[in-house]
């Protein structure tokens, strides 16, 4: 007779090993960053932190009145918070199932252990963890703050009960269509809203009863129509995405099929209109959606830079910001352009690079909107006779730099190591002229020269 270890033992074995692996990884990072000197400083710092805890007692005493005020209102608004809390889980269900069923649990289910039992074990573990976390927070608040124990216990109980009650609805809602999620969300939001305006206590009790009924209803089909692959992917990401490790190793954890949302749109499943433009446009969309983190960081930082500089009283700083934005945006786009052809399928396909360049530009304009908003607003707030020329100058200079840098990348992709020295130098001159426009606005008439330069190098000017 084959004896197999109880599920609990195997489950615990996996948990222990996962924990050990994480500790090992953090240890490696720690050893990488912390030498003996830093360790001594850290030791001193922790000493200060411990002393700080005692000082915190005084600090909390200083703010006793405010804390008592919060305590009083926490009692008053208890039912309102109870009404609003489930909505948080409805929102969460759009992107997370709430139960971490990772590839380890998935593998475990391939052994002779029922998937359902493993799932319940994960859920019990989750509840236990929450009980401990809320317990510790509650204990801290009761010991070190003037909050009344009753209020703390009330809230602890509320959070724990809601977490338990919402586990199954969140799990099931995660697997329903977006429309169903919205319908459920709106229904509960309406009850919450009415409840807040009328009788929060009654509304909260009604909501809890409703959620309880949902639990009963969903329990019958708990494991029907479940996208296990998606759950595993998200859970793996949740467990193994460790920013500190990513930073140290330089390798970012990426989910394989991150942008599934696009694939569920029926229109995107249809065959292409058989044109290069349509196909390339989609390829860029796929590429940029994969690079969305970097794209958002780039656009956000440049837009942020211009917004901040727009409020600085020295005009030249704003113009310097514009120069930096034009230069960085065109450079990073050129890097993206090259990268696109060095991975995946495109690496082995023949490239119609001029067409790719044109279709890429359409996405470049879309991406530039958040950067253009502060720029154009600034220009309009400082409007003068020269403003249209200045805008034209910035626009054509960007186009010139875009074409120059992309052509450079095309040459590199074609194993031709030309540097485009003249065009790069000219690009730098245009950037310098943009900067000088703050003082000598007539320089903006230089856009005619930019246009001429583009024609000279036979580049098509795209008047988007």
């Amino acid at each position, binding site marked *: 007779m084959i004896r197999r270890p109880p599920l609990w033992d195997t489950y615990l074995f996996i948990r222990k090993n996962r924990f050990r692996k994480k500790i090992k990884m953090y240890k490696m990072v720690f050893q990488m960053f912390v030498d003996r000197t830093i360790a001594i400083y850290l030791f001193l710092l922790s000493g200060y932190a411990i002393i700080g805890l005692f000082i915190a007692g005084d600090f909390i005493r200083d703010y006793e009145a405010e804390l008592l005020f919060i305590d009083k209102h926490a009692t008053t608004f208890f039912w309102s918070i109870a009404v609003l809390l489930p909505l948080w889980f409805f929102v969460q269900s759009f992107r997370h199932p709430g139960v971490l069923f990772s590839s380890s649990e998935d593998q475990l289910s391939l052994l002779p252990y029922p998937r359902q039992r493993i799932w319940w074990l994960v859920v019990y573990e989750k509840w236990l963890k929450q009980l401990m976390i809320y317990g510790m927070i509650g204990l801290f608040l009761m010991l070190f703050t003037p909050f009344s124990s009753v209020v703390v216990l009330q809230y602890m109980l509320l959070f724990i009960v809601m977490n338990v009650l919402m586990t199954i609805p969140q799990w099931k809602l995660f697997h329903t269509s977006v429309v169903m999620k919205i319908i459920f969300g709106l229904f509960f939001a309406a009850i919450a809203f009415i409840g807040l305006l009328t009788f929060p206590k009654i509304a909260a009790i009604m909501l809890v009863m409703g959620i309880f009924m949902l639990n009963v209803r969903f329990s019958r089909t708990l494991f029907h129509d479940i996208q296990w692959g998606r759950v595993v992917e998200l859970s793996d990401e949740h467990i193994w995405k460790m920013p500190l490790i990513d930073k140290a190793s330089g390798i970012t954890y990426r989910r394989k099929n991150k942008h599934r949302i696009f694939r569920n749109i029926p229109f995107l499943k249809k065959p292409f209109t058989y044109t290069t433009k349509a196909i390339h446009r989609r390829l860029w969309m796929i590429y940029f959606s994969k690079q969305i983190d970097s794209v958002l960081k780039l656009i956000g930082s440049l837009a942020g830079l211009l917004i901040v500089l727009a409020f600085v009283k020295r005009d030249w700083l704003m113009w310097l910001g514009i120069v930096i934005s034009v230069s960085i945006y065109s450079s990073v786009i050129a890097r993206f352009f090259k990268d696109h052809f060095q991975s995946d399928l495109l690496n082995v396909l023949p*490239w119609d690079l001029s067409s790719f360049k044109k279709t890429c530009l359409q996405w470049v304009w879309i991406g530039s909107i958040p950067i253009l908003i502060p720029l154009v607003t600034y220009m309009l707030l400082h409007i003068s006779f020269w403003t249209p020329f200045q805008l034209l100058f910035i626009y054509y200079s960007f186009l010139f730099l875009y074409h120059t840098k992309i052509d450079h990348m095309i040459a590199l992709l074609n194993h031709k190591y030309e540097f485009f020295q003249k065009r790069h130098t000219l690009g730098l001159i245009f950037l310098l002229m943009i900067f000088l426009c703050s003082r000598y606005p007539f320089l903006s008439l230089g856009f005619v020269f930019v246009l001429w330069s583009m024609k000279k190098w036979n580049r098509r000017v795209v008047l988007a």
Partner: protein
Amino acid sequence: MLHVQGVRAEISNKPLLEDITFHVEFGMVAALVGHNGAGKSTLLKTIVGVLPKSAGKIMINETYDQDQSLITFKQLISYLPEEPLLLPELTAMQHFQLYGKSYQIAENRLTERLERLVEGFEMQDKLNEYPETLSKGMRQKVQAICTLLPDTPVLLIDEPFMGLDIHAVHFLEEIIKEKSRKGTSILLTTHQLDRVKAIADSFIMLQEGRIKSIGPITDFDTIQGRSTK
């Protein structure tokens, strides 16, 4: 015709390929054979330009040099990788269209070719599926159709029969023979030696990144027997 002369490739000063020289004539099928890690897939990737070479020359029809213009060179090669390189965001049909446009195949010709290949690989009801919803064999078929769509002078195939059902294997063999009759130079890697003998005209045996032996397929058994002894 594919001409490979003194090709060397390396990663971090570790040689992957050393002094590889051979050519595949018009309409000939050459089989790259060798143990795992001998450098077969690396050689194909170097010919396509996915892996850079550190020395040597790769030419097509004695005119198109990989070093002169990789972009033009790529137009002349169709490559079937061992692992399908499909984009998870595109359906099978969209992949075919992408290949069609990349190799500048006119729409009506694409439709004609697709009809035959899709039917041959029994993929009619999978055209609007995403790769992740397809089985491994089906994904392999999608990649095979993509690669067989264009009429390039050179066709590179890495482990073509792996993961395919017997019907698909026969159909693929038929297409390879047909392409070779039309004058395409074909270089393929495989571990299925019985199939090699059925479709190849010559063989190139690799060992640790070097050519160990080369010759007509009729000599293959003799050479193989000698090497196993």
